[in-house]
C-alpha cells in the first residue's frame, strides 16, 4: 500500500523516510542455509559439568561439532528449538573455556578453530541500503547475532586462556584465517567490529610470525579504501589496533613504519568519511610524532598539502589535529614549520565559516602554543597580523570579533614594539590602496565626462580619441593648450574644436 499521496508522487521529491517505510525487507537467502533440505534438529547433549572428567574431552568435541550447524535467522520462526539448543551450548562452551584449566589439549585446537571458522567466516551480504551513510543512517545489524556473538566471545576466551599455545595454534590460525578475519571488518554491525578489533589485537600480540603479514594486509585495505573504493566500515577499528602497535614501536623507527605514515596515514586524511575515524587517525599520527619528532616536518607539510578547500567540517577536524600535534611538538621542530603552518592558520582565521575561524582562534587559549608563539613572535606576528586586523573590522560574526580581540591583545602584550610597527605599516598600506582606488575612480569619471556631444564629430574624432587613449602614457604635445597636461584634456579640447583642419588625417600623434 502506498503511503505517498498523489501530490507527492507528482512532486518527484518524495521524502527518504517515506521511501524507506515503503520498502519491505526482503529475506536474503544465503547458500549457507540451502544445503539443509530437511529440517535437522539438534539433540541436546548432557552438560559438561555433569560428566566425569575423563569423558569431558569427548563431550567437548561433540558439542563443538554440534555447533557447526548453521541456522537461518532471517526467518524468525523456524528451528526455534534447535537455535536455542545451540545458543545454550555455545554459552556453556564459553564458560567451560574461561573457567577450567587443562581444557586446551592439542587435539582440541583443530575442532575449536573449525567451529569458529564455520560460524563466522561468511561472505558479508551486500548492504540493504546502497546509499548507506555511516554518519546518518542506522547500520544493518547482523541477524544471527545471538549465535555469532557467543562464537566471538568463545574465540576471545580461547585466545586469552592461560593454557593457550601459539606454537600449536599457529597451524590453524594462519594467514588464511587472518585474511578472512580482516574481511569481516567490513561488517556494518558495530558490535561485530568491536569483537574483531579485540580479537585481532590479541592475535597480533601472540603470533609474532603473523605480524608482518597483518600489517601488510591492513596496508592493502587502507590503500584500497583511499584510492579505489572509498568504502570500508572497519577503518576506525583497524586504526585503533594500529594505535596500540605504533605505541609499542621500538626506536629507531624502521623505514617500513615511516613509509606507512607518509604513504598511508597522511593520504587517509583525504577520505570523504574522515569524521568516522578521525579521532583514531589523529591518535596514530601523534603517536608517531612522539616516537620520532623528526617526522614532524613531513607530517605537517603533508597535512598542509591535503588541507581541505571546500569542506568546512573537515577543516575543523584538521585544526583539531594540528592542535594535538602542537601539544607535543618540540621547539626546534616548531621553528621549521612555523611559517607555512601559520600562513594556513591565518587563512583559517579569516574564513567566513564561523566554526573554522573559532577553532583556529582558540589555539591562543593553549598555554603551550602560546609559549611557542612567544619564542618565535618575530616570525609569527607578521604572518598573522594582517588577517587578524582585517577581520576585526570585517567579520560578520560577533563572537569571532570578541575572540580576535583576545588574540590581538595577547599578541600585543608579547611584543608591543613589533605590534605597533605592523599596525603603522598596515595602516600605511591601506591608505596607499585607498589612494589608488580613488585615482582609479577619478580616471573613470574623467572618461565618463568625455561624452562626445556632437554626432558630427563622433566619426572623425573617435579616431583621435582612439589614438589618445593608446598614448596615455606618453608626453602630450599641446599646441594651444594651457589647461592641464592630461592627454584626455587634450583630446577633449581637440574634440570641441569645430574647425577641423582640412589637410590630411586627423591623427595628432
Amino acid at each position, binding site marked *: 500500500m502506498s503511503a505517498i499521496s498523489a501530490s507527492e508522487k507528482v512532486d518527484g521529491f518524495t521524502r527518504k523516510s517515506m521511501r524507506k517505510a515503503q520498502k519491505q525487507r526482503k529475506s536474503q537467502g544465503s547458500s549457507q542455509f540451502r544445503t539443509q533440505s530437511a529440517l535437522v534438529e539438534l539433540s541436546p547433549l548432557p552438560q559438561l559439568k555433569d560428566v566425569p572428567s575423563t569423558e569431558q574431552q569427548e563431550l567437548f568435541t561433540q558439542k563443538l561439532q554440534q555447533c557447526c550447524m548453521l541456522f537461518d535467522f532471517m526467518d524468525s520462526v523456524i528451528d526455534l528449538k534447535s537455535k536455542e539448543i545451540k545458543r545454550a551450548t555455545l554459552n556453556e562452551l564459553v564458560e567451560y573455556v574461561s573457567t577450567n584449566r587443562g581444557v586446551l589439549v592439542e587435539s582440541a585446537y583443530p575442532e575449536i578453530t573449525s567451529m569458529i571458522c564455520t560460524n563466522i567466516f561468511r561472505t558479508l551480504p551486500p548492504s540493504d541500503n546502497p546509499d548507506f551513510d555511516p554518519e546518518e543512517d542506522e547500520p544493518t545489524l547482523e541477524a544471527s547475532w545471538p549465535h555469532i556473538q557467543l562464537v566471538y566471545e568463545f574465540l576471545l576466551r580461547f585466545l586469552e586462556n592461560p593454557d593457550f599455545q601459539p606454537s600449536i595454534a599457529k597451524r590453524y590460525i594462519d594467514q588464511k584465517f587472518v585474511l578472512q578475519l580482516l574481511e569481516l571488518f567490513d561488517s556494518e554491525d558495530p558490535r561485530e567490529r568491536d569483537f574483531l578489533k579485540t580479537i585481532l589485537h590479541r592475535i597480533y600480540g601472540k603470533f*609474532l610470525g603473523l605480524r608482518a603479514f597483518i600489517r601488510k594486509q591492513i596496508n592493502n585495505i587502507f590503500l584500497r579504501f583511499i584510492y579505489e573504493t572509498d568504502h570500508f566500515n572497519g577503518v576506525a577499528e583497524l586504526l585503533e589496533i594500529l594505535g596500540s602497535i605504533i605505541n609499542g614501536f621500538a626506536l629507531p623507527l624502521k623505514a617500513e613504519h615511516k613509509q606507512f605514515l607518509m604513504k598511508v596515514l597522511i593520504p587517509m586524511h583525504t577520505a570523504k568519511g574522515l569524521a568516522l575515524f578521525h579521532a583514531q587517525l589523529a591518535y596514530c599520527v601523534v603517536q608517531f610524532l612522539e616516537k620520532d619528532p623528526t617526522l614532524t616536518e613531513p607530517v605537517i607539510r603533508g597535512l598542509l598539502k591535503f588541507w581541505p578547500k571546500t569542506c568546512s567540517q573537515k577543516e575543523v577536524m584538521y585544526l583539531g589535529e594540528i592542535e594535538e600535534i602542537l601539544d607535543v611538538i618540540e621547539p626546534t621542530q616548531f621553528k621549521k614549520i612555523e611559517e607555512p603552518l601559520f600562513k594556513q592558520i591565518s587563512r583559517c582565521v579569516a574564513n567566513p565559516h564561523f566554526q573554522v575561524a573559532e577553532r583556529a582562534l582558540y589555539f591562543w587559549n593553549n598555554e603551550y602554543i602560546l609559549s611557542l608563539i612567544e619564542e618565535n613572535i618575530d616570525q609569527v606576528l607578521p604572518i598573522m597580523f594582517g588577517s587578524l586586523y582585517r577581520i*576585526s573590522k570585517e567579520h560578520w560574526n560577533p563572537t569571532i570579533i570578541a575572540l580576535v580581540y583576545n588574540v590581538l591583545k595577547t599578541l600585543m602584550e608579547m611584543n608591543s614594539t613589533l605590534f605597533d610597527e605592523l599596525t603603522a605599516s598596515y595602516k600605511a598600506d591601506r591608505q596607499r590602496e585607498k589612494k589608488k582606488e580613488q585615482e582609479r575612480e577619478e580616471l573613470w569619471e574623467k572618461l565618463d565626462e568625455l561624452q562626445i556631444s556632437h554626432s558630427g564629430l563622433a566619426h572623425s574624432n573617435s579616431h583621435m580619441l582612439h589614438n589618445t587613449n593608446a598614448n596615455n602614457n606618453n608626453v602630450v604635445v599641446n599646441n594651444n593648450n594651457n589647461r592641464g597636461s592630461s592627454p584626455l584634456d587634450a583630446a577633449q579640447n581637440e574634440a570641441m574644436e569645430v574647425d577641423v583642419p582640412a589637410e590630411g588625417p586627423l591623427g595628432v600623434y
Partner: protein
Amino acid sequence: MDAFKLMKELRANYEQEGYYIPKETGLNLIESTEQNGSGISAKCRDAQVEDLWGLSSFFGYSTQTFVLAVNLLDRFLALMRVQPKHLSCVGLSCLHLAAQRSEPDAMLSSGHELIRIGQRRFTASDLSRMEKIVAEKLHFTSSAVTPLTFLHLYHQVALGQSPSRKEVLSLEKLEAQLKACLRCMSFSKAKPSVLALALLRHEIKAIQSEDMLEMTCHVQRHLKIADGELQYWGERVARCLSDYASPRCSRPNHRKLLWVVSRRTAQNLQSSSCCAPDLPTIPEGGWDPSQSEDSSEDLSSGEESLSSSLEGEGGYFPLHLRRRR
C-alpha cells in the same frame, strides 16, 4: 603653517596646559597607595591604561583619542577618590568620551560594543552615567591640551623648511613612543610641553640630526623651559623607551581573558579531548625477523616460546633461538 604662526600657537597652548595637568597631590596619593589597598594604586592605573591601549588599538582609534582618554583618566583619578571596582568603568567612559570627541562618526563604536569586547561586567547605562560624571567633574567640553598637541606642533617646527625630512623624523614613531610612555604613571606628572619636547629630543638624538636639535633648543628658549626639568624628563623617557624597545617579551598581570565560543565548537572541543584508546600497547618484537615485507612465511620454532610481553630489544633472547637465514 608658517614658523611665526607655529610659535604663537605653541605659546598659546603652553599657557593653557596648566589647566589640563592632573592634580599633583592626587597623583602622589595614588603612587603611595599600596597594591591591594582600598584605593587605586599606580599599578591599577597602569593596568587600566594598558587595557585602554589595547581597546583603542583594536577599534582603530587614533592616537589623539587614546592620549585624550588617558588625560581624562588621570585628571579624574587625581581629583576623586575612586574605588578599585569602579576603575574599569571610569576607564572605559574616558575612552568613550574621548572617542566621541576625536573620532569621525564612521569609526565610532557603540558603548555596547566597547563593553562586550572589553569583557566588562557593567551595563551601557552605567557607562553613560559615568561619562556624565567624568565630564561634569572635569568640565570637559571638547578637547584638552595634551602632550600630543605639543608633539604635533614641535614636529612641524622641526620639519621646518624641509618637508622631505618627514621620512627621517616619523610622526607615527613619535606617537607610538608617546603611547608607550603614557602607560607609565610617572609621566602623568610631567608638563605636556616638557614631555613632548623630551621625547622629540630623544628621537632626534637617535637619528643624529644636529640642525633639528638646534631647532629644539630654539623652541625651548621660546617657551622658557628650564634645562633641569627637560633633562630630568629626558632621562626618564630614555629609560622607558629602552624598555619598550627591548626584544624581551613581557606578559603583565592582567585578568584572564574570557574565551567565549559557540555551542558547537564547545561540544567539538569536549569530545576530541578524550581519546585514550582502551587497547593495551603491543611492544614491537626486538628482533622480530619478519620485519621486511617479503619474509612472511612461517618461521622456525625458535621464536615460538616468545609471548607477547616482550620487553627489550635483541639481547633479551638466547642466541640459539634466533632465526638463522
